[in-house]
């Protein structure tokens, strides 16, 4: 059974301040007018569910900025931002939520500045900032949310948060997103997910079982089909590299290539696959392309937002369980990776 989202006291005070309807049943006239065009896409019921949803977003760079813009426009209930890094020149790249005025952003965190900009896009959405380290949060912390999105997270953080989300009795949808150079990876974990799909005039009830993040990144490589996107493997190598060297997203350069290739070699050996399984050129791209490519941010941020909207509204077949985009070949592919390959 799902538990009550935000603390009722907080809810009441926030809602009355924003003049929102309390019972959460009908959409207000204002909402109907504003959301008209999208209600025609996914319907009023889906819109209602969106307006009641609470999204946690951690790690804000270009792609996540795009994602936040999209879900705020879509009219989710609330967006809670976590990113204590201070705004600097690099943060301005690909992030249109940060106005380039040093006087305005000096001393402020990325989350704080983005919060102000996002509120502007849709006053009906509650946008707020949560400070601190995501991985240090208790399991109960995540219960407040319907969706958790980790951007550019470390392997440890992604695992830990995913585990906590899975522990809750309430189903919290879990996503990770990572964009480097002109590539992007999205991971989706909706646990046991029931949804409706239209099949030839009939409404069909469907169910999907998603593997946990831990399982999804630990799948043995050998049984994975040949045609699977190479980015899956490359990202696993990068994850290990960053964990071993204690690096954050983007803290790397060409000088790290030998180390990365060494890790790749070990992983390939451990998985009994040849080294050609993971192209060196791809790895090189990922560690030298430390900043995001804005068109890729728009694309990956768009796909991610669509997935979150689908999960919250319960409408439409969700992506299972990885999405990869690479501007070089122009493909955006879904890969279903789980231990089922070995069974």
């Amino acid at each position, binding site marked *: 059974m799902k538990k009550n989202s935000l603390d009722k006291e907080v809810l009441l005070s926030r809602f009355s301040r924003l003049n929102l309807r309390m019972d959460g049943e009908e959409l207000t006239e204002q909402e109907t007018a*504003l*959301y*008209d*065009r*999208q209600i*025609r*896409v*996914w*319907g*009023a019921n*889906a819109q209602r569910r969106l307006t009641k949803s609470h999204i946690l977003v951690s790690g804000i760079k*270009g792609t996540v900025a*795009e994602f936040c*813009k*999209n879900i705020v*426009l*879509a009219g989710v209930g609330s967006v809670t931002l976590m990113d204590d890094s201070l705004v600097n*020149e690099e943060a*301005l*790249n*690909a992030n*249109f*939520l940060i106005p*380039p*005025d*040093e006087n305005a952003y000096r001393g402020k965190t990325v989350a704080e500045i983005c919060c102000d900009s996002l509120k*502007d896009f*849709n006053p009906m959405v509650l946008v707020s900032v949560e400070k601190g380290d995501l991985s240090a949060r208790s399991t109960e912390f995540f219960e407040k949310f319907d969706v958790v999105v980790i951007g550019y997270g470390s392997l440890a953080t992604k695992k830990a948060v995913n585990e906590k989300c899975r522990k809750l009795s309430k189903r919290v949808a879990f996503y990770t997103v990572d964009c480097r*150079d*002109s590539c992007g990876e999205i991971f989706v974990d909706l646990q046991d997910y029931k949804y409706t*799909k*239209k099949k030839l005039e009939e409404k069909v009830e469907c169910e999907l079982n998603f593997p946990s993040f831990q399982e999804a990144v630990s799948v043995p490589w050998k049984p994975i089909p040949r045609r699977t996107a190479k980015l899956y493997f490359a990202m696993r190598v990068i994850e290990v590299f960053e964990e071993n060297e204690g690096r954050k997203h983007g803290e790397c350069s060409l000088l790290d290539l030998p180390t990365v290739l060494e890790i790749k070699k070990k992983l390939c050996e451990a998985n009994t696959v040849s080294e050609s399984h993971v192209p060196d050129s791809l790895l090189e*791209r990922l560690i*030298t*392309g*430390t*900043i*995001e*490519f*804005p*068109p*890729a*941010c*728009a*694309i990956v941020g*768009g*796909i991610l*937002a*669509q997935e979150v909207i689908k999960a919250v509204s319960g409408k439409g077949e969700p*992506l299972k369980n990885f*999405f990869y*985009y690479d*501007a*070089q*070949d122009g*493909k*955006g*592919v*879904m*890969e279903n990776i789980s231990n089922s390959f070995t069974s």
Partner: protein
Amino acid sequence: MKSFHFSNLTNLRCIAYCSVLSLPPPMDQQQQQSAIQGAKVLMVGAGGIGCELLKTLALSGFHDIHIIDMDTIEVSNLNRQFLFRRSHVGQSKAKVARDAVLRFRPHINIRSYHANVKNPEFDVDFFKQFDVVLNGLDNLDARRHVNRLCLAADVPLVESGTTGFLGQVTVHVKGKTECYECQTKPTPKTYPVCTITSTPTKFVHCIVWAKELLFAKLFGDKNQDNDLNVRANKAASSSKETEDVFERADDEDIEQYGRKIYDHVFGYNIEAALSNEETWKNRRRPRPIYSKDVLPESLTQKNGSTQNCSATDGDDSTTVSAMPLLGLKNPQELWGLTQNSLVFIEALKLFFAKRKKEIGHLTFDKDDQLAVEFVTAAANIRAESFGIPLHSLFEAKGIAGNIVHAVATTNAIVAGLIVIEAIKVLKKDADKYRMTYCLEHPSRKMLLMPVEPFEPNPSCYVCSKTPLVLEINTQKSKLRDLVDKIVKAKLGMNLPLIMHGASLLYEVGDDLDDIMVANYNANLEKSLSELPSPVINGSILTVEDLQQELSCKINVKHREEFDEEKEPEGMVLSGWTQSPATNGESASTSNNESAVDVTESSSGPEIASKKRKLSETQPENHKRETENVESEDDDDLVEIENPMTVSKKKRVA
């Protein structure tokens, strides 16, 4: 105020961008960066795609951008056109978009034009100044126009479109790839007049009737031809009689007038139609509906709205609405016959009571609440009569206003794809050009599917100068018919010029003197064979649009008879074939195009002409619903087939 200069990021960006095209390092990084920085880009459209595109271009390092858009901002834009705020409603989209982007990239050059791209100021010379043109349009007409100008100016064009979760981006480079018109695009759906006036079978027919006939007759230009009372059996009542019905005397009680109209169109007209047995042999008979059977005798006491009700609350025409007066709050609710009838009468009353000055000049506007209420009610009552399922105001509004359903995410994705193609074009990396389809459901695991562009269609009349063939009755058809139906509608020419040999039969322009204009007007009314330079079987016409720099030759073939059902226009234009790539499989690729071209938001489903000559302009190869009926249960509006199933294509390089 100290602000950050983005030139500092150049080197970082170089590293990132070079790998997009897997270029070898250093030397080409600089080249690519300078290609972007030196580029002058034209954006056409500052709406859903436009806002996302301008933002992404700015972030990507472009700093010389021109943007054209003729529209102003509306509330319904705000769910996705994120550069706009509520306070901007009514202002120019191009201008506000520019201002918004300059706030996070203050040092780039953006020039905005609040104008129609079809204006003469945007001629070939104007287009020539750009390195690439990026379209974010929502109608076929403008797209064709821009396509022709880009061909004439020899400037690459990146086209795009979105509808709901579907989207696509295509690249058009003269001589290298197809132009936008190499594959015929479906034109907006039209319906035969008799279906609208006498034998509707779908709700959309009722909407068109309510909008184009009834609403127009009651509130629109009185001098316009109106088929409202046209019946298959013309021997019925004289037109004078019907004129009296629609005329309202100044002192005539509005409610009585409303009921009179109601009874006439839903009662009497139906009975008259029923009298023609032939029509109903194989069709379901409609039932006449009279107000006395549906509504109480007088509505005045019921809801307090009277003819003399004064405008105490300072209503302006945009807020006057029938629904609240009847206790109806939810536009998604389905009304029954009684409720629809109440809305019909109430809305009509409100028009006369509160908006009298506008009567005689109104055209249907989807943002006119009262008009939407009236049309919904009228369409529903008609639907009830003909046994067609009723629809909510929300649904009816979508159909009547040809509203395109739209979300921010698809536009954002498409914008990213456009910029990626634009960069390739600037680098002249022809091998890498792709058409990219954004799908709702993965096809062979792909949600974003790149496809190589096709070579130009050798028989495309726009980019390859193929002569066309026109079968027409040269003795009966007038030049006007040729101009309207063929030259403007089918060929999409804006300011046409028609020549027969050395003789100039017709042209449009500001610089014409009165004698010439009179001469051309006279020509319009003549049949082809009676023109000063007679056009007969075997004649060859040259048709041009100087602005689009498009010239076509038309071989005229005289034909006596045309099938009224299959060729209702009385003429057939042919000669260009589908691109060989899509022959037989046009269901797939055309579906992609047409799925996206469902973003037509011009004037919606309508009667093609006022005369009894219309055609259903559905492409032969596939059936597709263009009605924008979106019930909550629909996941897919349009099914896209996998374009990869197209077996044989001639690819570029």
